[in-house]
């Protein structure tokens, strides 16, 4: 076993996902402790743009596994192709973002390598030669620190949590894969981008979320208007479980324990009482604003700023004030 850290870079349709660069820098910190190198592995077809961007990261070396069989994501195919590369690298640790792809690929790879994996890590540790990671559990109601006793150590990293630093230029090498398209079991056949204008909930700087207090799905435009007032691409719309279960909003907007965990700079809860499942999903936001009619609502316990009032009265006024502030 070497002291090297392997980072699986996520590339979709030729584009490098930003969280891959966070994983490279987190890998750099580990490599500084182990005394090894950081090797980023990218898989796909037409990887030139992605590897050029990776070359500016803190990786020491980049391996581009270019193959038509890897043109579309396949959990079993990618796992096999990575194993082909690993046989020569014998890394001490393997990292990847905790993204839709990372969640699908890393457990499969980890089982094949007969080792442990920490999912959704928010901190990595290398102490006395032992790798460990800290991750939120119970949707963030608690944190678990776990040491992995098998090798290699594997972790998927929570996006937007590790910092990205620029490096000094990495060497790029191109590798082959023996994988053929007819060996693939499950394969992605189509990618559908969300309708334009939507900011992904977990990447937004501002989240404006609505709950039962809006009384009717038709009133949700008050929440959308406030989100829009922050400017294009700035704010995402979220929803409480109650309104998703009631069919007012889609599940992809749900914030909380059976939805998404978000940590934006600013979270505005509108007509949300703050059930424990909801609080778990947004309590690590930097600033929390609560607007609710009920002064006793639990949401005020976690809010930095609260307004006790009717959302129908407060939201239009706030939307107007935010629009003015943003316009300068």
């Amino acid at each position: 076993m070497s002291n090297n850290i392997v980072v699986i870079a996520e590339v979709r349709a030729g584009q490098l996902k930003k969280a891959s660069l966070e994983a490279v820098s987190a890998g750099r910190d580990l490599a500084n402790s182990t005394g090894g190198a950081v090797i980023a592995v990218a898989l796909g077809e037409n990887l030139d743009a992605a590897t050029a961007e990776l070359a500016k990261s803190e990786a020491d070396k980049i391996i581009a596994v270019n193959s038509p069989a890897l043109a579309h994501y396949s959990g079993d195919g990618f796992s096999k192709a990575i194993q082909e590369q690993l046989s020569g690298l014998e890394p001490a640790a393997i990292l990847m973002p905790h993204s839709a792809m990372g969640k699908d690929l890393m457990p499969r790879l980890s089982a094949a390598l007969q080792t442990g994996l920490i999912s959704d890590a928010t901190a990595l540790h290398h102490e006395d030669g032992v790798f460990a990671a800290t991750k939120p559990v119970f949707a963030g109601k608690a944190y678990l620190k776990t040491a992995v006793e098998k090798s290699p150590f594997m972790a998927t990293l929570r996006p937007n949590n590790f910092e990205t630093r620029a490096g000094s230029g990495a060497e790029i090498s191109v590798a082959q894969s023996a994988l053929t398209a007819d060996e693939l079991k499950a394969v992605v056949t189509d990618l559908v981008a969300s309708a334009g204008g939507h900011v992904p909930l977990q990447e937004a700087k501002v989240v404006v979320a609505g709950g039962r207090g809006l009384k009717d799905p038709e009133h949700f435009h008050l929440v959308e208007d406030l989100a829009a007032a922050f400017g294009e691409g700035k704010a995402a719309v979220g929803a409480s479980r109650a309104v998703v279960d009631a069919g007012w909003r889609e599940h992809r907007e749900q914030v909380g324990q059976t939805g998404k965990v978000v940590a934006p700079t600013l979270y505005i809860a509108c007509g949300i009482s703050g059930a424990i499942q909801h609080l778990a999903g947004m309590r690590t936001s930097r600033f929390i604003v609560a607007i609710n009619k009920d002064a006793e609502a639990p949401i005020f316990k976690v809010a930095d700023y609260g307004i006790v009032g009717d959302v129908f009265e407060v939201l239009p006024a706030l939307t107007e004030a935010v629009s003015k502030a943003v316009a300068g």
Partner: protein
Amino acid sequence: MEIVVCVKRVPATDSQIKVAADGTSLDPAGVEFVLNPYDEIAVEEALKLRDADGESMVTVITLGALDSQKELRTCLAMGADKAILLKTDAAQDAYSTAEILAAQIKTMPHDVVLCGKQAVDNDNSQVPARLAALLDLACATEVKKLDLADRVFTAVRDIEGGQEVVRCPIPAVLSAQKGLNEPRYASLKGIMAAKKKPLEEVAATEVAPASRVVSLSLPPARPEGKILGDGAAAVEALVDALRNEAKVL
């Protein structure tokens, strides 16, 4: 078609989490345990596949202590045909859980293995894809829409900024995301019938976990916030605070 559903007993999502005296585990006092919410969706999907096919059997499996029988009975009451408890009192991680479940599933016919996308205790989302590797099966995780034709699943899953469509031939492992279906409640008749359905108890294979818990801790409490006022009159104070204190405007 033989359908296997892997389920887990977890603390209800409205549980207040407290750390036990050992500093590494959950204090179970006052915690209500339930069937993992995503596993309910997996069971529902299994029942729908069975009923569409007419010749299928749904077997639910869990790994855990004797008290997990309650969650298995819930699955039987929903309509599953049979249940297996792989009994263990030892702490497990995703590595050992998948190894033990796979060893059991290998002894059974299995066309489709269904799981919830993650258990809401440790939030790992590892076991489904691990099972797929150990059983050498096709896999689609976090599925929110599923169609089956000619023994090939077409699964739709959310990815960052969109959706992807996965072609996933049987035999396959699938993990269920919210939105896939609306899980049924067990009827009184179902609950009565569940008492007579087979619930087999098997000693779990011993597999040492790959990881060791160092500590379980609670996040620091948020500092007390302030109420800026009532109604629209407080908006000015809020915008002022967002601009000058929080500096987010």
